[in-house]
């Protein structure tokens, strides 16, 4: 039984102990690069000229007030919300945004991009008509063309690792919110993504159930998954991330290591936001 959520990368192993944040080799390979990404929604500039990079195995938290464009930015990464301009590079695949008819990215480009990116939504978005197991196997069969037996083997491994082996045959409605979100994580991981996007994965959950989800995410981070996490869980962001991005009115206001952004933010606006969320 494999004890990892993420298949082992062919890189030097530090032994039985999973590589923690600190043991990670510095100066790694570039996994994500956004260049000048902008997106208008209903006449409102939701994302303004955002450029970011993230190295393989690093965790980035995106914080900021409601309406800052965090979700929209995340959805630009896998083109669920196709940017109006700019480019998105993930793990060797670059897609340039263009909304003009005929010049839009080809379906095959988007498929290549999405194959590398897993996404977890605020409201889980499990498929309610399918069992937990089928939720995790469906895309493996349709997208990766795995056969049923392989897909089920991988699904059961992942469900076991997120603590839900006994829920394989249940339907989503029979699971708690925390369990549904862990199934959603397993569903995304089943496609062996190289980047995981999380949009407020615990916002719809009671703190107790949210904690189950956060511990799975922590495990993922320790195993070296590259992650971009939109979150209001400041404590979690501080502990787990390598970098924190503060967004305001669609733009990146401030970016830096958690020690700096949380303790000595440069911008007054960041300070006010942090005071508002931390001193509740």
């Amino acid at each position: 039984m494999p004890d990892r959520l993420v298949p082992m990368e062919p890189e030097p192993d530090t032994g039985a102990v999973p590589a923690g944040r600190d043991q990670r080799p510095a100066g790694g390979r570039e996994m994500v690069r956004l260049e000048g990404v902008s997106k208008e929604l209903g006449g409102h500039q939701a994302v303004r000229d955002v450029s970011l990079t993230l190295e393989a195995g690093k965790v980035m938290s995106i914080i900021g007030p409601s309406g800052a464009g965090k979700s929209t930015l995340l959805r630009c990464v896998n083109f669920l919300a196709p940017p109006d301009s700019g480019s998105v590079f993930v793990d060797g695949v670059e897609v340039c945004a263009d909304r003009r008819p005929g010049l839009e990215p080809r379906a095959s480009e988007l498929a290549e991009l999405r194959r590398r990116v897993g996404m977890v939504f605020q409201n889980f978005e499990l498929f309610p008509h399918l069992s937990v197991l089928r939720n995790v196997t469906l895309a493996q069969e349709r997208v990766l063309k795995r056969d049923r037996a392989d897909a089920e083997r991988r699904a059961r491994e992942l469900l076991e690792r997120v603590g839900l082996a006994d829920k394989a045959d249940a339907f989503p409605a029979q699971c708690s919110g925390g369990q549904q979100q862990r199934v959603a994580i397993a569903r995304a991981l089943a496609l062996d993504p190289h980047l995981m996007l999380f949009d407020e994965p615990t916002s719809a959950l009671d703190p107790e159930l949210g904690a189950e989800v956060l511990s799975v995410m922590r495990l993922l981070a320790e195993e070296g998954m590259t992650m971009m996490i939109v979150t209001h869980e400041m404590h979690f962001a501080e502990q787990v991330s390598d970098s924190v991005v503060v967004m305001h009115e669609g733009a990146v206001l401030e970016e830096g290591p958690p020690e700096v952004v949380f303790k000595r933010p440069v911008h007054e606006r960041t300070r006010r936001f942090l005071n508002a969320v931390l001193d509740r």
Partner: protein
Amino acid sequence: MLEYLGPISEGIAATVTITALAFVLGSILGLPLLAASRSPWLPVRALARFLIDLLRAVPPIVWLFILFFGLAQSLVSLDAYPAAVIGFGCISAAYMAEIYRAGLLAVRRQQWEAGAALGLNRLQVLRTIVGPQAIRVVIPGAATWAIALLKETAVVSVIGVSDVTFLATSESQRSGDGLLIFLLAGGIYILMSLPLALVARWTDARLHRAVAL
């Protein structure tokens, strides 16, 4: 009483087959009509919307007259029975397109996104994720339409198709016992629609249990 029941019930075949054929035709033609009404291309979308509204706005009897007395007699010769099937088939297509649309709209938009994020293409998302959830809404709507259609087909008697209503009319003219004959005809319509209603209830309950949204 039985002396009337025999002749009237000979019309059951025509009523049931016209209803069934028109329903199947409509269920099939409703799909391209739905697709066209959601086309990204404005002229296609507008034409489809216009057709859907037109087919539903004009009473079926008028469509039948247009098909049977208008088109059929001038262009091609069309018998009353196929004219009835084609007419009600087209009307059904418009209603079914709307029923399918309601089914799609009942599924959260985010389910499309969850499928797309997993790398499924639109057709795959429709087939495996959105369609199966939409069916929950489509089946009761389709059953309601099928029952309405069964009753609506009574107007085919005016173009001379020997359905239940046509035979009841001629039987009552022959015998003069209109009340009893039309009560019998009404009873036959109820009996014909009963299985439809039961099937609708049963599948609806089953789907609700399986999906439990």
